[in-house]
């Protein structure tokens, strides 16, 4: 344990940010790393709890108290190894994870949690800097081949684990670049894409083969896969966005968030966007519908593009500023969260339902909304009703729909395979075996779980890899 009384003596210190007015001028990361000495000190705040709630709060079950202690004692290399023992890509989660671990941290009950995410990120960043992170090439090779469909975080994690178990792994990616939503969805200012490239090189050396522009079910047939591979992991994500089928939806200027965000990521990566399809927020009144992380990314991206105004709408009530920890901790609480993008300038509205879009010349110009209220019904569920007479409207030149994703895209492979789906349209497989109804066809990540966090995707990818390994060999040394 770091220091017995560290938590009583030291305050939480986190990474700081470049000032909002500066950072909105570019698309680069704006986190300012903490001095390693300060990171060490932050490690001392960890109490090494008898029950480390963080460790369960963290979806990949990072051994947080253990590496906190190591960081405090300047044993960074060991901390890095330990971190990698549960998480393939801590540099991703160290940047974009909402850190449920910190919500579960014991110090969060009465004080500020340990800066777990900052420490995690510092450990892995230092590892890259020092050249400690090397390919872990499996010493034994199996004669098994596994295909991983999709190269998002779960696909990558799954592929890396399988390669390390000695299998030959090929990752099929329909896009021209590897990374899935990490690459196309998450703005560079939150996570720069070189991080993915770096991991890809590591994985290539570990024996993973990447096949881009390979859309299984379209330009690559399932039959080919079945012939070549002894197991197939589907990590295609949950790409089917939730739509808003109201009047005026067809108007120009109403887009899904992912259309907007991926274009910007392409742009940052140096790709020229065809002006016909170009979506830009520059000089526009932007309305983002949906109050989640994707919505927030739209806000940040819009501001960087030079929007005139940015407004975000959320159907649910405004959550409390502070949660009632007595009834939430150690769970992830519903509470008001203000992201760095929000801090950069944005008006937020809650309890708003969009009734229709209005437009001029086929281009959207206005949103008609109504206020709603949420009341608990007899069965304990919250029910929404519109408040009569509360109708109002927004000026809008660009509307971005960020209301989440409902399930994986069924068209193509999934339909071809006839794989069994859950009631909400995800692939059916349990979270120990990850096996679908189709022989040797496994599923992990958002396509199985439904839309979720990157860290969950990594967890599922790892567990799925273990299950595949077991399926192929009869037993597995991979961690569960």
């Amino acid at each position: 344990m770091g220091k017995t009384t560290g938590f009583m003596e030291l305050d939480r210190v986190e990474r700081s940010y470049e000032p909002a007015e500066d950072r909105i001028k570019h698309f680069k990361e704006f986190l300012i790393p903490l001095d390693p000495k300060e990171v060490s000190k932050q490690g001392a705040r960890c109490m090494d709890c008898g029950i480390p709630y963080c460790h369960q709060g963290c979806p990949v079950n990072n051994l947080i108290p253990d590496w906190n202690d190591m960081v405090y004692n300047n044993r960074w290399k060991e901390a890095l190894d330990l971190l990698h023992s549960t998480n393939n890509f801590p540099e991703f989660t160290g940047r974009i994870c909402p850190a449920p671990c910190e919500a579960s941290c014991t110090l969060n009950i009465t004080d500020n949690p340990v800066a777990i995410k900052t420490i995690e990120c510092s450990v892995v960043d230092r590892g890259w800097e020092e050249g400690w992170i090397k390919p872990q090439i499996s010493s034994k090779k199996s004669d098994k081949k596994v295909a991983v469909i999709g190269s998002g975080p779960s696909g990558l994690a799954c592929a890396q684990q399988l390669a390390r178990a000695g299998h030959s792994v090929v990752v099929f990616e329909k896009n021209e670049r590897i990374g899935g939503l990490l690459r196309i969805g998450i703005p560079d200012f939150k996570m720069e894409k070189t991080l993915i490239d770096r991991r890809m090189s590591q994985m290539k050396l570990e024996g993973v083969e990447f096949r881009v522009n390979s859309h299984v079910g379209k330009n690559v047939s399932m039959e080919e896969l079945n012939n070549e591979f002894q197991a197939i992991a589907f990590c295609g994500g949950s790409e089917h966005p939730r739509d808003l089928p109201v009047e005026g939806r067809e108007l120009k200027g109403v887009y899904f968030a992912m259309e907007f965000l991926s274009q910007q990521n392409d742009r940052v990566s140096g790709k020229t966007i065809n002006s016909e399809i170009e979506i830009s927020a520059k000089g526009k009144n932007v309305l983002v519908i949906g109050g989640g992380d994707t919505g927030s990314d739209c806000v940040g991206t819009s501001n960087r593009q030079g929007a005139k105004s940015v407004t975000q709408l959320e159907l649910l009530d405004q959550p409390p500023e502070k949660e009632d920890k007595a009834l939430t901790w150690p769970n992830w609480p519903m509470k008001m969260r203000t992201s760095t993008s929000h801090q950069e300038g944005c008006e937020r509205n809650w309890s708003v339902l969009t009734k229709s879009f209005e437009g001029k010349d086929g281009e959207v110009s206005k949103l008609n909304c109504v206020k709603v209220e949420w009341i608990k019904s007899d069965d304990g569920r919250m029910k929404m009703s519109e408040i009569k007479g509360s109708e109002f409207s927004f000026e809008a030149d660009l509307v971005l729909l960020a209301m989440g994703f409902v399930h994986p895209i069924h068209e193509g492979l999934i339909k071809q395979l006839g794989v069994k789906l859950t009631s909400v349209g995800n692939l059916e497989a349990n979270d120990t075996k990850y096996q679908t109804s189709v022989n040797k066809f496994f599923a992990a990540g958002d396509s199985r779980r439904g839309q979720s966090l990157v860290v969950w995707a990594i967890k599922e990818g790892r567990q799925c890899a273990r299950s595949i390994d077991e399926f192929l060999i009869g037993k597995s040394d991979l961690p569960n």
Partner: protein
Amino acid sequence: MSVNKYSKMGFPKEYGLYDPNNEHENCGFGFLANINNEPKHEIVHQALEIVHNLDHRGAVGADPLAGDGAGILIQIPDEFFREEFINSEIQLPEIGSYGVGMVFLPSNVKRAYLGIKAIEKAIINEGQELIGWRDVPVDKKVLGNTVKDNAPLIKQFFVKIGKENLSESQFQRKLYVIRKQSLSILENINNNKVVDWDDFYIVSLSTRTIIFKGMVLAPNLSKFYIDFQKKNFKTAIALFHQRFSTNTFPSWRLAQPFRYLCHNGEINTVKGNTNWMNARRFSMSSEVLKDDLKKIWPIIEKSPSDSATFDNALELLVMGGYSLPEAMMLMIPEAWKNNLLMDPKRKSFYEYYSALMEPWDGPAAMAFTDGIQIAATLDRNGLRPARYVITDDDLVIMSSEVGVIHNIPEHKIVKKWRLQPGKMLLVDLNQKRIISDEELKNDIVNIHPYENWIKNSKVSLSAITYETNKVPPEDSLLLDLQQAFGYNKEDLKFFLEPMIIDGQDPIGSMGRDIPLAALSDKNRMLYDYFFQTFAQVTNPPIDPIREELVMSLMSFIGPRPNLLDPKSGGKQKLLEVSQPILSNNDIEKIKRIENHTSGALKAQTISICYDKKNNSKLKFDELLKTICTSIEDLITKKTCNIIILSDRDVNNEQIAIPALLATSAVHHHLIKKGLRTKVGLVVETGEARRVHDLCLLAGYGAEAINPYLAFYTLSKIIRELPEEISEEEAYDKYIKSVTKGMLKVMSKMGISTYQSYSGAQIFDAVGLSSKLVDKYFCGTSSKVEGIDLEEIQKETENRHELAFGNSPLLLNDLDVGGDLSFRIRGEEHVWNPETIGTLQHAVRSANYNTFKKYSKKINDHSIKLKNLRGLFDFSKKTKPINIEDVEPVSEIVKRFATGAMSLGSISTVAHTTLAIAMNRLGGRSNTGEGGEETSRFKPLPNGDSMNSRIKQVASGRFGVTTEYLSNATDIQIKMAQGAKPAGGGQLPGGKVNDFIAKIRHSTPGVGLISPPPHHDIYSIEDLAQLIHDLKNVNPKARVSVKLVSEIGVGTVAAGVSKAYADHVTISGNDGGTGASPITSLLNAGGPWETGLAETHQTLVMNGLRERIAVQVDGGLRTGRDVVIGAILGADEFGFATAALISEGCIMMRKCHLNTCPVGVATQDPELIKNFTGQPDHVVNFFVFIANEVREIMAGLGISKFNDLIGRRNLLDFGGAEQHWKAHGLNLNKLIVPLEKENNEEFFNSRNQDHGLEKALDNLLIKKCKQSILNKKKISFKSKIVNTNRTVGAMLSGVIAKKYGHNGLPKDTIKIDFEGSSGQSFGAWLAKGISFNLEGDANDYVGKGLSGGIISVFPHRKSKISPEDNIIAGNTLLYGAIAGECYLNGVVGERFAVRNSGATAVVEGCGDHGCEYMTGGVVVILGKTGRNFAAGMSGGIAYVLDEDNVFESHCNKSMVELEKLSDFKNSEKHTTKEIQTDLLDFDVSRLKLIINRHFKYTKSPKAKLIIDNWDKYLPLFLKITPYEFKRALNERKQRLLINKDLPIKIAGE
């Protein structure tokens, strides 16, 4: 059931969890002797009178006429027998030439006939001659009903010397063989077909002595044996015994005395001792017994009695040629090892024999005789009382108490003294004199040249030059080895690393909530299947730190000399190690010991590894067989005499058999073959690293252990530590830590020496099949079955495969472990983020649905098995009822209590929150150890109450005032605690803030030690006494005894019920703690399920169930737990951890660090602010539990809770067929059917009969009525005898209830007693009462003294000089809070132990004076025993050191000694100053106190000192604890700065 169904001689056979081998007994005992060897009739009756007057030391079970047994051993009444036979054909030769056999024959005529014939045949076979038989006339009317039916037929037979010309001792040896052979003949009657001959028992067969004993109450013994009435029935000596057993089964043969002795105490190491005796079978030969030696096996007769076993061994030694006292010195040696004051010759004697015979360790007061010498001795700890007086007509009366013969006039007594630890009192009837311990032993130790023998034979390992070490493994191989031996990160983090930093066995907190090894999905170490057993009630644990002088870790490695041939002394080389943990260099030395001993010792290393490639073929049993037979071969061929079992060969290809399994298998194999003492057994293993591991290897036979991998691991750890530690230092610290830990484990069972611990098997197995245990861990108890050799092999091979396999997680790192702190990939924990979060949300939001989610998670055993109760299912055969018909929540919650948690361990607000909640519910909260603020005794304005209804009395007695006790509903005597049974404890000075100091009546900043034992409970009859004491103080309160589950706890509970406890708690080993050695926390005690079931079964079988309430605690969490607890036999239920979690605890396991972040287990004011618990949260928890209980009851069709208790048919054992390990478990023994004895209920339905109406206090209270009401002064006289016990306590209780701790004005009540008082004279005597006793007193005078004044001085007619005679017994002023005590004479051991504030004067004291004292002033005007001031953290003592020897008697580890003359003798200060500032005014204070002593006792010594003050003053020493002095000085400084701060010292 009727016991008769089960046994002919009383004990039932093993049934359910009941096992007769767990029975215990303690007692009153002693002897009488006429020094001039003049046989007298009155000695018989005096002996019987004593037994009668020691009645309170015996017990009565369910049958009021059936005692636990009483008896006397006397000289053969030669004259009587001659006159009896005057008209018969029988002619007796002269005394010494004939033997008399006293025999209990079967009541069945046919069987009795066979018995008689067997004896007669044996006599003929041995060439002797039967003279005749005599029916012993008895009066069966005095027998109780339960005893009558199986009373034996009692006969005597007479034998004379046959044709050969035998000396008396040769004849006696023949009689011995005849006795042994009689049973063999019987057992072989049906061609070896096993027939139980339990009911055939030759009580005695001797040329000198005869025993009369039986299952009768002491006063009835003389009515039963009609011979006693005959005037010519005479003896010059008598041993007598009054038994208190933990059962009510009439077992005639277990009444004492045995053939040579009677015993008060308990031999803790009896299992090991028995094994070692058997182990000598083929290595013993005797010049005197010759071929007869073969005819006496088994030497140790089948018996559940340790005393009988001891007697058997003693008899062998005496028959083998040792004198009786010499044999006793071998078996119960003094503490010689660390005694610098002992004569070197005597030391050599003990050292020499320590290689021949391991001590029979445990509290023992033994009286023994061969008819010519009669003697008594105490073991090294001196934990049993033994007082004696000598009269002017040469009568010696030695007994547990003084004053046992009521009509001996004081003026006839010439000496009053006591037996001292390790000392012997011997009367030689031939020489007609008392031989002193000094003379006796001096003669014995000079028989042989022991010093020379040792010089010639002893090889000390430390004296051997360095050997070349093996090359340590590379890091990567080290990791593989660690993994192969099951190391995980916690081994490093919680054990090895802290050990080399702190140098002690590491401390942890909260309880165990991981599954039993057999239920775990992990590959557990074999060590995890064993739990340490420990002493509770029937024998005391030892404090290995404060009483280090009795402890020894010395071990001999190698063959042992022939036990029965002392003349061969000095020939066999003996390798001695000072402690049993061998460094990596030590083991190399042993491997090459041949070179250092000219071949006299030779070691052979035997690998316990096997080749992986063959593992499909090789099974453990075959491998072990090969190992055992090859070792047997080596021994018989004399190839070597030291065996080193080694797993050094482990590598990728080689797998090691678990070292524990191999060690025990070899040890037991060699015992069975009678070869064990021909060879030394050393274990070289990578497996052992924790204290528990090492203890197990020792307990199953290892003489020394080399944990080589632990050392290699340490070498790696120190490279990574921030601070610099050398390898040497790290190894030293590690050895120091583990040996300290081992001492602690040994001392938990009251075992002092490694030699007796080795092979003593002080463990219970949980989760091992009996097939496995019987074969490889023979003699160990295992009650729930479990895994077999195959599973052990599987776990071993799994570990090996993981270690040398490719698991990426294990490539560069150890497994996480997760036993001590939760880890996802680690061991399963019942308390985890999910269960804790859900429970807290439920109680805070008062949401029963959320609670159900919690309890569902806790109860779910479908995926992971967590505990034994998880394997039970509720019966589906019953018809459910409506929940409305079930007893309401408000009734059920009354059965609930919160666990004992002290104010020191948890914050006040956490403590009061629980109390308020429990009082709102009508349940009970528990103070825990350490007192309670008196303000809490009064209700709060809003009607709430913070008064904890259960007041705990623990070994520290902190804050246990009369007022505290009188405000209790329940008084709980904490015998043990689940997390650290028999452990004791320590509150460091830093934690003793003003508040804690105030309620504990101690000094802020001064550490407080809770001793491992209650110093007034060393045995069951002592417990009965404390129960009686407490009941007197507060007759309305229930007195409860808290025990911890282990195999045998049921028999202890039965004893507790017989000792009149109203309530007993059975705690599981899952219980929590604020701080405990992790070794204890994880590895001691057993699950509550077995302990509770055993308790209930044993109580029911004994007919003792309905008079005692049974509570269970230790990890209860849900309604299901409660119902299962009830069905297994509990009336009431304790919750500690779950209740704490309800008020906010999150299982940080940081209680011992004072950093609890939620303000529960901390005294830090900043952290306490974080506490958010509300009484309502706790109330909600208990209401939810009760709700759930009702739901289950409805499902089972039970409306009344009482109908649930003990209803075993409501549970089914489902088993765990699917589980790879747990499939072997079988819990059916927990739910065996029971029959009601005499229609007794299965639940607590009536009260105990405490006999309080007999208390003298009733009379005193009546007389003092006006004083109590109006504070009117009164003084009067009263006679007192030893059966008047606890005088003053009831009176004080009445006063404290009315006036609180302040009591009455000084001297309001003054009583002058005359006589010998019973135990606990003046216990908890309240302020305002003065007791003056003219005569003498027994043990525990002034126990818990709460302000009263006590003086004891010799009778005015007495001629003895007070300062040379004993005036009062042992353990005086234990836990005294305030008051004064003046004793005009010498007292026994442990004077003023844990005194908090009393002032006391005495004129000499025994060992361990002022032990654990925390306050007060003690003056000793004479000699002290050894180990004075051990653990003394506060208060001061003045000792008159006339011979300048005190320093060598003082334990100076915590105190400093100063001359008083160094202090200024200023007279200008007030009495108040003198009393309050203990740093100064010594001279005035001392004078003041001695003057008072004279005033109260008229002590001649006091007068002499006062009259010659200037001469005596320089002879006084002041003893002040360092910590106390520092704290008082700091306080003084603070006072100078802050004038308002009161000087607060202990006792004020």
